[in-house]
Every structure is written in C-alpha cells, then in structure tokens.
C-alpha cells in the first residue's frame, strides 16, 4: 500500500484502493462527493505522505485549458522591443509555464490537483484530453515539445455542477466519496480532537446525524462543518447535557451557525422543533 490513513487523515479502504490504483497505473483519479468530505484534503495528504510537491490548479469559470500549459506574454515582449532590451531576441523569455508544465518537469513525481473542474467552461475537460493522456504538449511559439519526465499523480475533483464529457471520463478512474458512517466519523473526529470527552462526542454526533437525517435541508452539514462545530463547542465549553436538551433555544443546537449555512434551514429546524413540542404536549 502506497497511501494509508495518517495521524490526521482517515482514509476509507475504498478510497485507499482507488488512490493506489491511480498511482500505480498512472491514471488521473476523478473524485466526486458532497462538499466538505475532504476531496481537496486528499490530494494534500497524498502529497505529504509521498513527500512530494502538491501543484494546485484551482479552476474558475474563466479558466482555460491553455493556461494550464503555458501563456505567451506578447505585451511585455512588445514593450521590451521598444526599449531595446536584450531579452527580446529570445521568445522563450516570454513564455510562462502553467501548472501542467510545472508538473511535467518537476524533479520528483508531484501530485497535480485539478480542483473543481466542473467550474470551468463545458469544453474545458475536452481541451485537456490529449495532454492528460499522452502527458505531453507542444509549445507553438518555440516549436518545443514538453513531455513529462514521469507522469504526475493527477487528482481531479468535481462538485457535479456540470456533467463531464464521456471521452474525458473514460480516461480517468472514478471514485465517489460517500458520507462516512458513524464509526468512521468518530475516527475522523478523534484524529482532529484526540482529547475530546467521549460523552460530548457521542452527544455531538447524535445531534449531527439527527440533523443530517432531516431530508428537507437545503445544505446538509458535512464533515468539515462538524469539525468546525466541535472546535466551537470546545472553545465555548458546552456541556454534553446541553446538547441532549432537544428544546434548547427553541429546538436549535448550540452554536448552530457552524452547522447550518442557510437561514431557511434554520427556520425549518425551528418549525420542526415547534411541532415536536406541540405533539409532546
């Protein structure tokens, strides 16, 4: 096994197999899952455990595939031409390598994270097909061919905002990170808060899973929200008994702002608690 759970990062066996397969077979690994289930974290931890660099290419709606390869800075070359600079004779002075180029030429096999690929234009993945497949591309300005010294480990994340093209998917391994079950979540929490009291953890997890069970929520809280909330609970020194009191603050858990990110969800929860109170009477 190349990559396993570390002290601070709990890896499910499924995901471990996926990562190891991708590393061994030198294929890009496409990771999907609810926001906050540690997709980006995975690449960071993988790079740390392999002792190599993480090259993070954050995709935005304006990102172009070409930017990942290189950019030709024509404007500064024109300026230098006016000023009679020496550099102007050599075009390669004005070619700025992108993330993919950096990853291809790194001394040690790096981890390349293409984060949130679904944010980009719909043609973006198609434009990268050949580069990811052959791990090489041409620089037209200089006629140079850049090919990977060794194939970087490519991790791609997606939040499912757009569907990815089939041809692109065929070239990747795909893994969907499922929301962790109670046992795994306990492990994850303990990895972050080793000194957490057992009763507080049980009470907090109970509240958390009850909350996730509410179907109508617009945004269900995920692992990262749970960790933030626990941090706050510890800082405020909230007792487990407060968590068990279902009618606290009209049915809202203490410090609910860390778990619920939508005012409609807050209102919904208050309403549910109100109805529970009425039914109990």
């Amino acid at each position, binding site marked *: 096994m190349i990559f396993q759970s570390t002290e601070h990062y709990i890896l499910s066996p499924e995901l471990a*197999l996926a990562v190891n397969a991708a590393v061994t*077979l030198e294929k890009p690994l*496409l990771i999907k899952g609810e926001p906050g289930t540690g997709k980006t974290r995975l690449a960071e931890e993988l790079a740390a455990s392999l002792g190599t660099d993480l090259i993070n290419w954050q995709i935005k709606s304006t990102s172009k595939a070409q930017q990942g390869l290189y950019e030709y800075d024509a404007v500064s070359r024109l300026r230098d031409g006016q000023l009679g600079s020496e550099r102007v004779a050599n075009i390669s002075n004005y070619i700025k390598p992108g993330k993919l180029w950096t990853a291809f030429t790194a001394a040690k096999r790096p981890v390349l994270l293409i984060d949130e690929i679904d944010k980009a234009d*719909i043609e973006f993945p198609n434009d990268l097909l050949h580069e990811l497949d052959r791990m090489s591309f041409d620089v037209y300005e200089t006629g140079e061919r850049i090919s990977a010294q060794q194939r970087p480990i490519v991790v791609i994340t997606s939040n499912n905002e757009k*569907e990815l*093209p089939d041809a692109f*998917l*065929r070239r*990747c391994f795909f893994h*969907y990170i499922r929301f962790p079950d109670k046992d795994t979540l306990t492990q994850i929490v303990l990895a972050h808060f080793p000194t957490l009291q057992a009763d507080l953890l049980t009470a907090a997890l109970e509240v958390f899973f009850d909350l996730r069970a509410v179907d109508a929520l617009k945004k269900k809280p995920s692992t990262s929200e749970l960790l933030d909330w626990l941090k706050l609970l510890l800082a405020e020194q909230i007792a487990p008994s407060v968590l068990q009191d279902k009618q606290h603050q009209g049915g809202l858990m203490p410090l609910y702002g860390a778990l619920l990110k939508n005012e409609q969800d807050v209102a919904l929860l208050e309403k549910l608690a109100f109805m529970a109170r009425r039914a109990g009477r």
Partner: protein
Amino acid sequence: MWLCWKNWPLWPVALAVDMLISFFLTLRKYGLKSSITELLDLLKALQQQLIFASMDDFYLLARLCLVKDESQYDKFDRAFAEYFDGVESLDLAALIPEHWLLPGLIRQLSEEDKAKLASLGGLEQLLEQFKQRLKEQQEKHAGGNKWIGTGGSSPFGAYGFHPEGIRVGQQGTGQRRAVKVWDQRDFKDFDQNAELNHRAMQLALRQLRRFARTGQATELDLNGTIKATAQQAGWLDLQFQPERHNAVKVLMFFDIGGSMDDYIHECEQLFAAARTEFKHLEFFYFHNCPYEQVWRTHQRRAADAVSITQLLQTYHSDYKVIFVGDATMGPYEITYPGGSVEHFNPESGEVWLKRLLAHFPNAVWLNPQPQAWWSHYHSIAILQKLMQNQMYGMTLDGLSGAIRNLSKRH
C-alpha cells in the same frame, strides 16, 4: 497448456480474461456504458496485483475502472450481483422505484384517462394493485392462464398505453411475459432521459451563438496594435479590445401548470442549461396559451404580470423567442375571445400570439409531448400552423433542429 506454460506469468491472466469478458458483457446488458478501454484498464490493474483474491476488493476495483458516475453505481451493483451470485430472480416490481414509474405512466395517459383513473381511486392505488397482480402472475405463470388485462375486467389493459410504453394486457400477445416488458421499458426510459441531459442540452443551445465584443477592453488587439504602431512610425501603441462573448439575446416563455406538470423535470433541465449558456436571457411564464399578459415568476402573481404590449416595447425584435409548452388544450382557448380557462380574455390567444410573432420573427416552439402524439390534438395543429411549422419536440433532435433554425435567421 503447453503454450501457456511457456509464458507462464501470463496464464492466470488468460484464465481471468474469459471470466472478465463475460462479466463485462453482463454490465453492458445492464445498461452500463463501460468501454473496452476501461476493461483493459481493469485488466492492467489486476495484472499489477493491486488486489489479492478478495471479492470485496475486486468489486471496488472493478467499479473504480468501469463506472464513471455515482448514479450508475446501482446498475453496477445489480449486474455484479447477477454475475457472481448466479442468476438471482429479483423481485422486479419492488426493484423499480415508484418515481420512475409515476411520471412515465402519467405521460402515457390522456385527459379522459386521467378522469377515468380518478374514479378508480388514483394512480397510486392502481399501481399498488398492479404490483400485486404482477407478483401473482410470476407465481402462476407456469399455468399460463392469468394475464394482466386479458380478463376483460382488469383495468390495466383498458387505457390504451402508448405502444412503446408499458405494454401490459395487450390482447393476443399471451405468450409475452409481462415481467420482461417491464424490464425493457425501464431501461429504455432511462436511456432516453440520459440522451437529453443537461450537458446535451447545453451543447445544443451552444449552437445559438452570435459572438460580439462588448464590455471592458482587456484583450490585446493584435491587428489594431500593428496598425496603430505603423501610424506612429514604429513607436509602439498598444490597442485593446473587449473579450468576445455570446451576445445572442433570448426570450423564453414557459407554459406552467396543468398538463405541463408531467414535464417539470425536462423543463427544469432546459431552464438550467439556458441560464448558464446565454447572457441576455429573460424568462416569462404563461398558462396554456399566451394572452394579453405573461408573468415573470412561476407563481404568476398579479404583481409579477407583464403585459405583452409592454414586452413588445421593451425588447427589440432582434431577440430570439423560444416557447416551451405542450400546446395541449381546447382549441377554443387559442381561437376565441374569452377562451382562457383562467380569466376572460377580450382578445383571443391567436391574436396575441400573432402580435408576438410579428414583432419577434425569430421564434420556435418546443413541445415536450412525444411527437407521435401531436396529430391527436387539434390545438397542436393550430399552433403548429400559427408558428409556421416551427414547432419541435423536446428531444435532442428537436432541440438541435429548433436552435439551428433560430441561428439561421437573422
């Protein structure tokens, strides 16, 4: 065996290949679109000995290589179960989730049928009854004497379902097992859905492009720079221009409520795809046929109403117009003043539609009703004529055709 012995590191693979190929074919049978490249990937992974004789690990590895979307995981699970646990007879009736069936079923029914259905206690109850009977039928099939719908008293054959739909209780096809027809039907349904997904829609809408440069000048204008520099006798004069983007202007009119409830999913997809694709896009809503006013929100409150007269003044005729509606209504709702089912309209829908079309010559109508059914509705024929045959089905072909037509004309 002699040959195998020579290349001995390969022979376990050769054994596995046979097994894997039939497994792969089982997957394809279940409707997974795994390709040969992906199968080769799986073989490579096995060759690398990433896993050791563990069924659970093999399951994970196969899924990793062969399935590329979490919505397909369920199909994979079922295929896997069939291949490795032997052919398990699954309870198909229980296996098909209700939400697949309901919209599909409702779509198959005409207004008259829906009324009839209500008298039988609603669709849920009917479906329940149907499942019950399906179960019974599986058990008694050996006897071969009880069929859904052939008794003449059964409600299931009486509805004139679409021939490609759930063919239950067709007289004279006593040899066909109903379970199989179920099976075929739901995969078909699934595939059709898959064809017109968000991405496909977006790609189709994409053809409607009019590139223009507006906004802030951020891009280097190479030609302009060369020209300006030459004019300055070689002294560099940089010129910038705004970035190119899609400047096509679109108005969309959605029919909502009533018979359109069956197509909510399709409309939502179209809505989402259009929203991300066009910058100049306005949405309006109407019910059955546009009259003197339309609404900005789908709740259609009085405060959101926009009169057509105002709309014609606001939007220039270079806007392209897309109507989305099933065009299924009483003919009088289009042709007569006062024909609207909701209010008294002083002028007929036809008059208003003609005004809209006169102002916006670039208009198409997308109809989510299956095209084969159009001829059954007089109202569709009327609208088709009003639209000068610019009515298209809401399939991939239809959408592409509509968009091609919109982009052809200026």
